[in-house]
């Protein structure tokens, strides 16, 4: 009878150790593998949301376009609160065009003051010069650094 009791005690200890080891192993695995994975996923989500937040803060409007001989001068206005348009890409009728630089670095020129910018400051109307497409009516698309897409129908007079 006593021998049975002792055997049951040992079995209980062994059983407990197995359960504890399994639980601890599972928790350690979750912490080590899934924790890191969850951290990466959370960081990825946060990055996507921050990018979306930056993108939704980009607010530019088309004001006017002027027909020159070989180029078209387009006036854009930033009605948001953040600078917009750094490293922006410009497309006319779906074809990418490089904006002409006003000096070595700047493609934006303040329409009122003539100041040169790398991006469009808030509340400023700027001009950019693009190669003139063959048609006098075309779609101008601007793709910003934060992947914001703006598209306007431009009619040259």
């Amino acid at each position, binding site marked *: 009878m006593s021998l049975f009791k002792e055997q049951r005690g040992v079995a209980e*200890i062994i059983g407990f150790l197995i359960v504890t080891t399994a639980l601890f192993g599972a928790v350690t695995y979750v912490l080590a593998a899934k924790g890191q994975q969850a951290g990466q996923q959370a960081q990825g989500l946060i990055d996507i949301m921050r990018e979306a937040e930056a993108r939704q803060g980009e607010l530019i409007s088309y004001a*006017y376009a002027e027909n020159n001989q070989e180029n078209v001068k387009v006036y854009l206005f930033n009605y948001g609160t953040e600078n917009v348009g750094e490293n922006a890409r410009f497309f006319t009728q779906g074809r990418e065009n490089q904006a002409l630089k006003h000096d070595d670095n700047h493609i934006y020129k303040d329409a*009122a003051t003539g100041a040169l910018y790398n991006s469009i400051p808030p509340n400023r109307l700027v001009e950019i010069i693009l190669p003139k497409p063959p048609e006098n009516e075309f779609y101008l698309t601007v793709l910003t650094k934060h992947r914001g897409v703006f598209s306007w129908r431009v009619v040259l007079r």
Partner: protein
Amino acid sequence: MKKSVVCKDERGFAIVAAAMLVAISIFFGLAAAVVVEHSRLVEGAARVQQLQSVRSREELSLRVLSGGNVEVVNKGSLPSVIVDFLINKPNGLVVIPVENAVPYLGAFKRETFTITDEDNLREFDVGVLTQLGNVFWRG
């Protein structure tokens, strides 16, 4: 022997409980960070949506008067802020900022702005640019 088993029992459970608590804390922290970012995004989206809604309801009309004066009428139900006047001249667009003037125009109000000394303003297209990025030309 029995006392020792109880102690081991408690220590083992304590270790597991602590590890689980740490794991829960880490996951809770990650979830909280994501929720905070998400709420900021939603708040920003609501703000932008509101701005776009106001923008679409803005409506101004212009009338060119003599002596380089332009009368602006706010036909919309919300106040407008005028940023620039635009004059489309043959040699290019002339932009006249109104930083020194009173650019605020209340709903259903009219205001006269002197934008130039030139008296031949009626010969050109004249426009007004608002803070919400709308351009209204003389009709």
